[in-house]
């Protein structure tokens, strides 16, 4: 939660809202990759793509 709060404050201060969707996608895909690397469901993840 603190991360999201910090990220929000950062975007607000920098006023770079166009980064928001980019960040969202990167975090989502990155999160999935990390999850896939470190969990038993890893072998099933490819079906998502």
């Amino acid at each position: 939660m603190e991360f999201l709060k910090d990220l929000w404050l950062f975007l607000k201060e920098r006023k770079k809202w166009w980064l928001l969707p980019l960040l969202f996608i990167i975090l989502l895909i990155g999160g999935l990759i990390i999850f896939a690397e470190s969990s038993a469901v890893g072998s099933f993840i490819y079906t998502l793509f």
Partner: protein
Amino acid sequence: MGKQKPASAILGISAFYHDSAAAIIIDGQVIAAAQEERFTRIKHDPSFPTHAIQFCLDYSGYTLNDLDAIVFYDKPFLKFERLLETYYNFSPKGFWSFVKAIPAWVKEKLFLKRIIRQELQAIQTYDQKKVKLLFPEHHLSHAASAFYPSPFEEAAILTIDGVGEWATASICHGKGNKIEVLKEMHFPHSLGLLYSAFTYFLGFKVNSGEYKLMGLAPYGDPQSEQVRQFVKKIESDLITINEDGSILLHQAYFSYATGLRMVPDQKWEKLFGLKKRTPESALEQQHCNLGIAIQQVTEKVVIKMAQEAKRLTGSKNLCLAGGVALNCVANGQLQEAQIFEALYIQPAAGDAGGALGAALAVHHIYFDQQRTIDSTKMDSMSGSYLGPQFSDLRIEQTARKFKSSFTKIEKQTDLSEQVAALIASGNVIGWFQGRMEFGPRALGNRSILGDIRNPEMQKKINLKIKYRESFRPFAPAVLAEKAADYFAVQSISPYMLLVKDVLPERRKKIPADYHSYPLREKLALIRTDIPAVTHVDFSARIQTVHQETNPEFHSLLQAFEGQTDYALLINTSFNVRGEPIVCTPEDAFRCFLQTDMDYLVLGNYIFDKKKQRTSNLKNELREQQFELD
């Protein structure tokens, strides 16, 4: 940044890029600072500085819970913003580099707050809610590292490095406890990265080989047509230099913004008409000529930036920091240009010093604490002797561990006389005293010392002791009060960050065509009466030694002067090539045994190589090799 209760203890951290370090300040006083590489024995170690933090806490007697703030030296989100915008602007170029970079960010770098706290908790459990975790900007950390320890109440501050978040150089104005940022140059335009690009092209390692390039440059022939052409090509094809000192790097000739290399090799080869030098291959005159060309351009840009800093601040003082401030040749030129009356350079000007600067910035700016300048001291860095020190007991334990014999000399003056006599008779000494230096230079507490008069000494120390390239010059450590007898000095240089010429009266007559001599012949020619520390262009990277900050080293130099009439010694860092400077007596002993060093002096204990059981140990120790830098 807002106002809080008065601060008493702040821990600064730099990490995750190169040269991680930690520093602790208490009530604005610098108590301890050290680079992680000295503990882990991995040169330029970028990992979280666990050992350095542990040392800072142990030395200060504080725990993490006693701290008011922990400060990281840059802003990770801002860095990520730069990364994203850069890839966006250059896309689709750089896609693969982007794909390679992103996982590290998503896994770690974006979550730096959590990682730092986890790492700290692994050192000591502490109350995360009570101790603030703060992130000043990278160049503010550099600026603070130079201004706050300086002896100036008010000064212009110039910071120049590869890149921080966006800024690659900044001009600030420091006054009292405040620093105002006046101007910044932004990525991808960077003087530090330009110099690193040449470091790469000339076959040295980026982020560590820059000082080799600086040492190579004087072998270039400044009067040659090739150097003139190289300078012309740099200034026309590679960069645009603006009047305010800012530069534009023509991105068609650079790959660092999106690629995994510094430059497109073929384009550079075509531009300069020479092949990229492969690491460790022979150095030719054309490499030296390209080296001197980029050095000249760097000096020109630094001087223009300083002129702009003068114009913006009107100050008579200048503080310097950032990796480019370690270019002591440019620093010497800057001082000669007399744009400012006084110059102060942070001894740990690179990223390691960012840890200290970050802590000082929080103390003075965030916590709004006033500065007190002690006018009796040259600065508040304590000579940069801020690292660990070791007791006689630890030295004796080391001696027992290595089953070695030694002589203990109780009186400092006797020790100085005896060691001076050993140096004067041609011996090379490992000199290990007191607290380890903070920053890249050995300043007489973790040093290898030799006789400046001996023309063979440079070759001997380079090849038989440090196992490094024969072209590398050595620096003189000179009694501060006698420096003007040897060098064209205008000020003190306690941190070996200024290059000055040897006085004309000490020079020997050189052949008219000397500049066109090949590298080895230039090196072999005896140019002055202090040949071991005179570079091929008659320059020397000076360290002035002061009674105030290092009485032991000062006493040794006095003894050497008494015996030889020369108040200076070769001072090079106590390590072999690729190894971080020694930290502990054990590190020193290992280094001593695996090289042709003649004597080791640990505190007041003298170890004679001839009396050590070296044959077996030398082979054992050889197995512990360091990656070449």
